[in-house]
């Protein structure tokens, strides 16, 4: 099999997933496993992190918030990314499943944002002596939160499903452009107190900033949060697909 036909095969089976029926079958099959992995990773990661790591020299036991804070922050950004990609697929290929996935990702992403904000605020009190500072990273998250609310509010405000899908997708795309802009604008505006990025996917561990005692459980709970996000996304999308089917059935009821 040549590379080209391999790629072709990949894409055709990828688009197959967008067929609602295949999606429902596939996701129904995988969901229990995903949930099981989530539970394992998350519980071991969090229990390891909370109970079997030493207190930090400077931060004391408050450092343990990191096991909730960092993964949820990452998933918050992930959710936004997913919305944009799902919307794009919808606008280009009219794939309902992808836009429903975008819709399902929004509340999950919003909750993650809220968790990141809340854990950050709780952490801020001992660390910086205040719950909130207008730091670029924090502020960006607040804006992200607003965007999630706006996106969901637009979904709710428009009655016609396909119309709502179209309009929210347009909003997501324009929002993405301005999100990048905001990110840079905010950096100009204030240098901030918040920690720089120390965990990067590319080089795994940056030993200078974070010791592996903390890092290994952190990595595990990050994987756990990722799986949790995925599981919630599947559940959400399945619910949306079912809601859609229900609407059709209801319309049939009314018409006959």
């Amino acid at each position: 099999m040549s590379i080209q036909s391999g790629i072709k095969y990949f894409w055709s089976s990828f688009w197959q997933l967008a067929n609602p029926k295949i999606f429902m079958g596939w996701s129904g099959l995988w969901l229990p496993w995903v949930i099981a992995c989530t539970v394992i990773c998350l519980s071991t990661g969090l229990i390891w992190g909370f109970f079997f790591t030493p207190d930090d020299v400077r931060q004391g036991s408050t450092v343990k918030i990191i096991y909730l804070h960092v993964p949820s922050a990452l998933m918050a950004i992930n959710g936004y990314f997913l919305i944009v990609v799902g919307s794009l697929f919808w606008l280009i290929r009219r794939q309902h499943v992808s836009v429903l996935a975008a819709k399902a990702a929004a509340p999950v992403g919003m909750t993650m944002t809220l968790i990141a904000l809340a854990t950050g605020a709780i952490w801020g009190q001992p660390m910086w002596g205040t719950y909130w500072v207008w730091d670029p990273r924090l502020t960006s998250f607040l804006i992200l939160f607003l965007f999630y609310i706006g996106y969901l509010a637009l979904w709710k405000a428009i009655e016609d499903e396909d119309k709502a899908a179209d309009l929210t997708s347009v909003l997501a795309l324009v929002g993405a452009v301005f999100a990048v802009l905001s990110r840079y604008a905010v950096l100009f505006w204030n240098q901030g107190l918040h920690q720089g990025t120390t965990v990067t996917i590319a080089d795994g561990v940056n030993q200078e900033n974070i010791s592996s005692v903390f890092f290994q459980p952190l990595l595990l709970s990050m994987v756990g949060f990722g799986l949790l996000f995925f599981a919630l996304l599947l559940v959400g999308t399945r619910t949306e697909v079912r809601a859609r089917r229900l609407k059709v059935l209801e319309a049939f009821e009314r018409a006959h």
Partner: protein
Amino acid sequence: MIQVFRRDVVLSIRSGGGFGLALIFFLIVVVLVPFALGPDQSLLAKIGPGLLWLGALLACLLSLDRIFGMDYEDGTLDLLATSPLPLEGVYLAKSAAHWLTTGLPIALAAPVLGVLLNLNFYVSGVLCLSLLLGTPTLSLIGSFGATLTLGVKRGGLLLSLLVLPLYIPTLIFGALAVHAAALGHTFEGPLIFISAISLGAIAILPFFSAAALRINLS
């Protein structure tokens, strides 16, 4: 009257508005201010209470022109005016619905947003109280203004213009109460003034508003 009130609340929820949105606008104003004024923490803490009051006022302002505007444009107001309901009652019902969907949620959320601006628990409580006592006036005055600008299309700005000067006393006493609390002074005086203004507004504005409605419909 209770019917009009109930219907207005339902309408505002149906149209994607409802309790949430006024709140969110309020949140947005609070978020925007640091961008405009710079992130200096102590500066923000100093102007925080006043800003929250200003935000509440603006959130209120934004939804005013629709209190009567929709009903006027689609002809419902004519029908209401020929119904057995007194126009004073219609005015009160609509003001109350507006307050329930904007003023009340804002007042309740203000302490939470106070955290963003470093207000302490005590000051937040006073802020909440002052908003609870003051926002009814904002809705009443706003609806009154809306009856005046009924016939004017795109009346939003004109309405703000008419209404803002009338908001000033409430704003002053509201901000004063919270400032006083922040400085540890007594704050009962301004709160009593706010309540008095609210009561006065309930007492006199219905008649003027009903008159304005009648004039605008004829």
